[in-house]
């Protein structure tokens, strides 16, 4: 198996290099035969990488411990699902997965029937081929997943038990798919620059590709947060760890890009800016892969370390930045904006500010992530940049972003007069105000909650108000009933209304984040059997401790009887796992989750004399984060979903740039 996989990788390299070269030679379209051979080459590389992945998967499933990777990340007692997920548990496997995904996307780009942007495909395919070549080169040299051991061990070392969680089955591949996915919009952007077809075509092609990668990365991040919450067992979901940051940065910049391409398509402005954004997104995505996999920055996530790999990534990033920005500079004359605006206050302005703030937030996170390195280089002093920094600096930025989302909904394109401003803002503002007063009366006193929650209410209301106005307009104009009118409204412009649904998802998540971060309560207690502790309205009585063994681990379970204001709620069973193959015990938290709050119990430790230490947290509104995430993904899918209706082909692709 190892040989098949390795040989397939090698052939994939040869074919990718050929395909990229042939695309470059033939991209002006003078040699149709060359182009079609290049297409076949890229498709073949996809087939070959599929063979590689399949042979690694087969080796993982069939316990082929002669392959070092299989030995390192699996063992005989590992469940099938986690033997499969071992594909992305380690460095080499996840890079193979990366390269394979990219080749699949490349094949999709080639095979997709398209009216718009056909001329861009050879250029984009060349860029994809080059990127793919880089990753296959890594696989063949520094990060070979098919490396053999001198003799065959009897059993493998097993997967890190913390990774044995359903979240871990989906989180890494989604995250990686997000990172990989940004290659396609980047490739089309470069294609537009190279071919000087700088009109609408590349934007049309790129929007849905970006949306797909953005959704995947967003969902990946969210699942990561969920995994941290239920599995890492410290009671939180986001630690501003360098690797988490790495996943958030490209997502934020891509969010900005998704908004600002609307401006270019509508108003013909921000042409250079959009190029910069997509280059930045791609570079940050590569940086994300690099941070996860290099161990440059100390992090709990970094499951692999290799300086050579780091150097290669840095070189690739450097080359990408220099060449793409160079090309952009070279073409900048053709990217002059055709903009004209009527008013300082308009939807365009809010979009510009939104871009600024999203990129500003990404910059803040970048600075925080690399500040320890900067500080050590400049002052020689090690510092840590942790949650207090990110929370303090980012909170005002994120609040401003939310505020803009509300304002933007109310302001029309091109211009907004003071009169219609007042008219449109009156109700949403009044609602926000009332919400603020109600919250104050209910006893909310933290100023951040009193600012942020009405803000969320404001945005939600503006969206609902906008939907109401649109529905009413349809109802009046077409005399449809309200339900049908509303449905028709959403369906006629899915990108737009999908976008609004995404905004609602973000608002719901924001409420969850505000609630859990401002009003979380935690308490530690050492109890003997029969003793109780109370936190908020909950009373927890420690009943007993159990011990049992499974094939792979020993488990200690504490049983706690939980009641709320005297009402019995049931039992919670926090556990600790002692795996045979890993020294570190793993904490399995017990969570009682409702829409209002989570009761989160951690078994900390125990003594010979039977006293047991618990850490108990009450985290309000955490479920809102996951619900908001689901809404966000739903909205994203609505915006992404293709229109099945026949639609007129947009006028000549690339008309603007030529």
């Amino acid at each position, binding site marked *: 198996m190892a040989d098949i996989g390795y040989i397939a990788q090698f052939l994939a390299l040869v074919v990718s290099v050929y395909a990229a070269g042939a695309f470059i030679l033939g991209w002006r379209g003078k040699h149709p035969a060359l182009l079609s051979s290049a297409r076949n080459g890229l498709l073949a590389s996809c087939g070959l990488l599929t063979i590689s992945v399949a042979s690694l998967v087969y080796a993982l499933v069939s316990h082929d411990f002669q392959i070092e990777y299989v030995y390192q990340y699996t063992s005989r007692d590992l469940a099938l699902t986690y033997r499969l997920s071992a594909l992305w548990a380690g460095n080499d496997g996840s890079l193979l997965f990366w390269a394979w995904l990219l080749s699949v996307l490349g094949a999709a780009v080639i095979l997709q029937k398209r009216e718009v942007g056909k001329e861009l495909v050879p250029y984009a395919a060349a860029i994809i081929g080059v990127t793919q070549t880089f990753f296959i080169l890594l696989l063949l040299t520094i990060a070979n997943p098919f490396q053999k051991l001198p003799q065959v061990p009897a059993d493998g070392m097993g997967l890190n038990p913390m990774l044995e969680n359903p979240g871990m089955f989906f989180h890494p591949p989604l995250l990686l798919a997000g990172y990989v996915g940004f290659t396609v919009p980047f490739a089309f952007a470069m294609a537009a620059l190279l071919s000087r077809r700088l009109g609408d075509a590349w934007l049309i092609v790129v929007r*849905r590709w970006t949306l797909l990668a953005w959704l995947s990365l967003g969902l990946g991040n969210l699942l990561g947060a969920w995994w941290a919450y239920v599995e890492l*067992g*410290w*009671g*939180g979901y986001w*630690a501003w760890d360098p690797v988490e940051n790495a996943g958030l940065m490209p997502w934020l910049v891509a969010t900005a890009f998704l908004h600002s391409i*609307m401006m270019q*398509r509508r108003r013909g*402005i921000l042409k250079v800016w959009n190029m910069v954004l997509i280059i930045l997104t791609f570079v940050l995505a590569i940086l994300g892969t690099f941070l996860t996999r290099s161990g440059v920055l100390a992090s709990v996530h970094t499951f692999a370390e290799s300086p050579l790999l780091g150097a290669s990534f840095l070189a690739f990033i450097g080359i990408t930045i220099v060449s793409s920005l160079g090309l952009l500079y070279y073409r900048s004359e053709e990217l002059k904006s055709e*903009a*004209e605006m*009527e008013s*300082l206050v308009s939807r365009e302005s809010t979009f*510009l500010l939104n871009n*600024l703030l999203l990129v*500003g937030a990404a*910059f*803040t996170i970048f*600075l*925080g992530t690399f*500040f*320890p390195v900067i500080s050590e280089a*400049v002052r020689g002093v*090690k*510092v*840590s*940049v*942790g*949650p207090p*920094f990110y929370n303090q600096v980012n909170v005002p*930025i994120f609040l401003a972003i939310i505020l803009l989302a509300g304002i933007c909904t109310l302001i*029309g394109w091109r211009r907004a007069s003071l009169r219609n*401003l*007042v*008219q449109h803002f*009156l109700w949403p*503002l009044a609602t926000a*105000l009332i919400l603020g007063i109600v919250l*104050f009366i209910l006893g909310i*006193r933290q*100023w951040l909650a009193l*600012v942020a929650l*009405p803000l969320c209410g404001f945005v939600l209301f503006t969206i609902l108000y906008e939907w109401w106005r*649109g529905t009413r*307009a349809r109802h*009046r*104009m077409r005399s449809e009933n309200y339900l049908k009118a509303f449905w028709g409204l959403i369906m*006629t*412009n899915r*990108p737009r209304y999908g976008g609004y649904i995404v905004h609602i998802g973000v608002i719901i998540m924001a409420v969850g984040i505000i609630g859990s971060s401002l009003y979380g309560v935690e308490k*530690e207690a050492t109890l003997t059997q029969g003793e109780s502790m109370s936190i908020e309205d909950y009373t927890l009585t420690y009943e007993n401790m159990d011990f049992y063994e499974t094939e792979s681990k020993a488990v200690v379970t504490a049983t706690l009887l939980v009641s709320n204001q005297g009402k019995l709620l049931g039992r919670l069973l926090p556990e*600790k796992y002692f795996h045979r193959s890993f020294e*570190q015990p*793993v*904490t399995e938290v017990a969570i009682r989750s409702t829409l209002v709050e989570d009761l989160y119990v*951690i078994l900390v*430790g125990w003594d010979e004399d039977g006293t047991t230490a618990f850490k108990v947290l009450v985290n309000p509104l955490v479920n809102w984060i996951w619900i908001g995430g689901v809404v966000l993904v739903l909205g994203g899918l609505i915006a992404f979903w293709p229109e099945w209706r026949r*639609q*007129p082909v*947009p006028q000549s692709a690339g008309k603007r740039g030529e």
Partner: protein
Amino acid sequence: MGFREKLVVILLIALLALIPSRASAQTVMGISKKLICQCGCTLVLANCTHSECGSREAMTALIRDKISQGWSEEEIIQFFVAQYGEQVLASPPKRGFNLMAWITPFAVILAGAGVIYLAIKKWTKRGRQAQIVGAPESEEEEEKYRQQLEEELKKFAERSFR
């Protein structure tokens, strides 16, 4: 008109809420949220869940000890800084070189806002020269808006903008 007054009221309420409702009692938890665990996990002390963490217990015990001796939070934190250096702090202190980390994001955003302001001004100027349109400020504003919305919807349906 309600618009501005309402804004003022919102701001006033926000100001009211700025008055801290309770003095934050110094607790082991509170302090351990401001420190980084020194076992190499790079996590905030309060969040470190490594079972075999070498330093969590010692650090937490030390905090508990100092609190019972009547040390203030600031003193305890300075004690840790003296022992481990600045890296023990969960975020860089807001002074000296470290200020850069705190200020640069806002400076960059402000500079960006300046650039955007200038750009919009330039574009508006161009726009005004290109066409002079009277602002619709009549009673039929609502009606016009509805029509515009409908037009937009139609346009979207036809030449779907994506």
